[in-house]
Structure formats: structure tokens, C-alpha cells
């Protein structure tokens, strides 16, 4: 087993849901929605920093860009990676290639494994967010674990290291499960694991000096092509009435509200 103590964080520039745009026909206007570093991946980076103090290795970030066209997205993608570098990542690797956008999780997971091989990175821990804010499907970490035949701990809200052992708390629907496994391992984290702060100006300035590698599909082997097709995406329009209840006094407003609650049939007699 490698004992270099290296950590890999998988980080994704995701479509920013807060900046959603709609086409006239109600379709999602992908081209005009910017990308940002997926929120929960920030928690993974923060956790990598904490674990690095114990493991004493390097933190690599690996990013597979899934939204194209790359020429147009490049700035957003690089910003997301820059944020990782500013927040403690030591070296960043990015796959950018229009032939795999829009990507799917099959392609992403196989490309991550291919990059680990190409750069000969043998991490003790691979960390990532439990899901990304655009697709929210939460499956890349499990795929990578299976491909590398490594133990997988999903939905971790707490991680402790004890020598070569990881002890983690998995946050499930009805209970918290404390589990233990040996390094190396793949772990996905929840937003509750820590509270990352935005990088400082000095951190951002330092980031540009750190090594970054951009690879293309032709630099890698064994990357599976996407199998899922995004046939359609519609902006969810839940039309609400947007009526303001007003009155001369709060008493009057309260009366009007009670009337509405009665009409809706939620007040018992």
C-alpha cells in the first residue's frame, strides 16, 4: 500500500441553479447558465485540508468538465479549479474535451480512474461531495470506488483517522451509522461535515502559482463514452398567484389570512 498520504478531491464545475435561464419555449437555456464549483465539493476540499494535517501528503483535485462548449465555459471551469487551489488543493488536473460534453457519470468515473493512472497518483483517500448541485445524482464516488476496488463510505458527516483506519459517521435517513475501514478508501461527504469559508485574496493570489494540468481525451486511455442522452430539460414553472394580502392594520391582515385558511379547508371548524 502506498503511504504517501496523498488525498484526491473530485470537484465539479456545475451549472449554477441560482442563475437558471429559460428559453421562450420553457426549455432550460443551458448556454446562458454559468458554472460554479458545486457547493458540496467545497465541503470535500475543506475536509481534505483537515485530513492533510494528519496524512502529511499532497492534495490533488481532479475535474472532468461535463458542460460545453469548452471554449465558452473555460473561464468558469478554471475559476472553479482556482477556488480549489486557493482553498488548499496543491495540484489540479482537468479534463476538458468537447467530445464528452454533455457528459454522464459513466464517462466521468472512467476518466477519473484514467487520470489517476496517467499521473500515477495513489491516494490514501478520495473525497467528494455527496452530490452535485446540478444533477444531484450522487453516483460518481461509488463508481470510482468500485472501479478501483476500494472501500466506499458514502454520506459521511464526520471523518476520523486512526493510523491506517478511517472511522466515519454516515448520515442516513433514520439513523447515523458509525463505520470503520482501512485506507485507501473513497468517501463522499455531506454539507453538514464542516463549514467552508470563501478563500481570502492572498489565498487566491497564491493559487495561480500552483501546478495545473489540462488534459484532452486523446491523452487518456479507457475513457467510456457517455451512454445517457439528455433529451429535454424544462424549467419548472410552479405558477403561484403572488397576491399580497394587505390591510390597514395587522389585525385586518390576520382576518384575511384566516379567511384564506378556511377556504383551503385546513382550519378545523
Amino acid at each position, binding site marked *: 500500500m502506498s503511504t504517501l498520504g496523498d488525498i484526491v478531491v473530485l470537484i465539479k464545475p456545475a451549472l449554477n441553479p441560482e442563475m437558471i435561464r429559460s428559453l421562450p419555449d420553457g426549455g432550460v437555456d443551458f448556454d446562458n447558465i454559468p458554472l460554479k464549483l458545486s457547493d458540496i465539493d467545497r465541503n470535500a476540499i475543506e475536509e481534505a485540508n483537515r485530513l492533510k494535517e494528519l496524512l502529511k501528503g499532497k492534495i490533488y483535485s481532479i475535474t472532468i468538465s461535463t458542460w460545453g462548449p469548452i471554449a465558452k465555459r473555460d473561464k468558469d471551469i478554471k475559476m472553479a479549479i482556482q477556488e480549489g487551489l486557493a482553498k488548499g488543493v496543491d495540484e489540479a488536473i482537468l479534463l476538458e474535451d468537447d467530445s464528452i460534453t454533455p457528459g454522464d457519470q459513466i464517462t466521468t468515473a472512467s476518466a477519473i480512474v484514467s487520470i489517476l493512472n496517467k499521473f500515477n497518483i495513489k491516494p490514501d483517500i478520495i473525497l467528494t461531495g455527496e452530490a452535485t448541485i446540478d444533477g444531484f*445524482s450522487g453516483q460518481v464516488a*461509488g463508481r470510482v470506488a468500485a472501479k478501483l476496488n476500494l472501500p*466506499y463510505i458514502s454520506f459521511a458527516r464526520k471523518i476520523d483517522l486512526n493510523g491506517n483506519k478511517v472511522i466515519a459517521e454516515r448520515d442516513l435517513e433514520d439513523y447515523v451509522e458509525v463505520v470503520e475501514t482501512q485506507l485507501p478508501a473513497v468517501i463522499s461527504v455531506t454539507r453538514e461535515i464542516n463549514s467552508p469559508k470563501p478563500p481570502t485574496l492572498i489565498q487566491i493570489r497564491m493559487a495561480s502559482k500552483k501546478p495545473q494540468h489540462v488534459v484532452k481525451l486523446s491523452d487518456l486511455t479507457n475513457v467510456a463514452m457517455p451512454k*445517457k442522452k439528455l433529451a429535454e430539460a424544462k424549467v419548472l414553472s410552479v405558477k403561484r398567484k403572488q397576491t399580497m394580502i394587505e390591510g390597514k392594520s395587522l389585525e385586518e391582515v390576520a382576518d384575511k389570512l384566516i379567511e384564506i385558511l378556511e377556504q383551503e379547508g385546513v382550519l378545523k371548524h
Partner: protein
Amino acid sequence: MVDVLVVVQKEADASELLTIAKKVGEPVALTYGNSEIEKLTKYFNKVYRIKEDDPNSIFFAIKTLYEKLNPKLVVGMSSKNLKDAYSRLAGIYDLPLATDIFDFNVSGSKVTYKRSFLSGRAIETEEVTMPLLLLVSPRKTQKSEGNSNGSIEELSIGNSSNVVIKERKEKVKGGVNLEAAEFIISVGRGFKNKDDLKLAFDLAELAGAQIGCSRPIAADLKWLTEDHWVGLSGKKVAPKVYLMFGISGAPQHLAGITDAKTVIAVNNDKTAPIFKNADYGIVADLYQFIPILTKKLKERH
């Protein structure tokens, strides 16, 4: 010949998953842990069982059956442990996997389904060829009647797990069942102290409502237990009325209330985004308004 492997614990889920399975072909089931196995035999001709219920064991069991039966579809209800187990099988064979899907349709070997996208702000339709793995969003599929009389087969997966479970701690619950609630009063960061939530609880008791909350109240401040938490990473609710106090209307919160019939927001900032996403809006300080509303409701009795 088996076409579909259904991974299921509860009868309510089986009746929905069977509807999906029948669109593809002949199903068998795998069940795990503490399941309603006798009832499941009504829905499937064969039910394989493992005693364990952790994602490693479920993964090994699904993998064993996948390799033995070669199904076109492996389907289950979305849950964290199944996401864990399915993603690993998907990884080994580079199979497509989609989570939290609904509106499943088949035409030949092509499959389409819908799922929520962009933190609940859009719906995507994906198209894919079988074989494939799916995890389904509960209560969005019609139920099928079960009229099988299936057999049970124990499946032994050996003790091959490399992740050891040390302990399970039940989550503390606030005793709410928001998914079934008709009237929800939901509280957000507009409350300044935990003690002030009493305003909302008193109102809810009087009005027969259950209490929901935004993420910060449960996750960051921990003023309420997680079963109160509504949104993308919390509960998805569908009450007749969702009445919110001091919640700004972040898209991740709205993702939990798209199926609410009537949304009413009370907020002291007239520019709060929630007013664009509410049926009725009231610009008021909750500290002034709730006591008045409570008093008026008391007078009604």
C-alpha cells in the same frame, strides 16, 4: 428468463416498482434486512433475501444476482443506501444509473424517464438504452396489485464486506410526519432565538398544523430535529397549505414545496424572493404578526 431485478423492502414500494417492472418484463425481487418479505411474495414469483441491510452487503447481493440473471433493468426506491450500492454496480459494468426518477417509459430497448434537475428548478428527460439501473422517487408511480404467490430463497453473500459497522444511532425525531401533513407552518432564519419558535408552535397547535423549517434551523442552528427540515436535502412535502414565517425563498427550499397547493409567506422584507414564489404574501414582522394571528384564531373558537 428474468428481465427485471427489483430491490425492495416494503409492500408500498413493491406495488409501485411492479408497475415499472411490468413495462419491461418478468421481475424477480431482492429484499434485505428487516423487510415485509411475506407481503412481497404477493408481488413477485421469486424473492431473494439477505439478512444484512448495509450498502456493502446489498451491493454484493445485487452484483451476484445481476451476474446470474442478466436483467435488463435493476430498479428500486431511492434511498441513501441503495444509491451507494447501485452506484458501485454501475461502476463495475459502466452501466447507466439514474436516481430519483419518475414517469418511466419503454419503447423497444429505449427507455425514457424524468428527474428533478438544477436543485429542483428544472425537470430533465433522459433517454438511454437498457441494461440500466434506476432508483425511483417514491409516490409518483401508480400502484399495481400483486397476485403472485412467490417463493423465498435465502441468498448467502459471505462475510466479504470491507467496511465494518461499529454502531447505529437512531436519529432524534420531533414527532412530525411532514410528508403526510395537510397544513404545515414552516419557520426560518427570521426567528432570532430558539425560544421564539414557541410563537410558531403555539400557533400550529391551535391551527392543527405541523412545524417545518428551512435548512439552517435544523442543520446549522440545530433548533429543530431533521424531520422538520424541508427542501432539496430535506423533506418533499405536499400540504394543502404551506405557511412560512421568516424564510427567504432560496431555490433549495422551494425544491421541497413544489407540490404544495397553496403557499403563503410572511416576511418583513418586501423584496424577499419568496413573494415571487408564493400564492399569498404578507409583509410583516413575524414577532408582531404571529401573536395577533394566534389571538384571532383563539377568538374564533
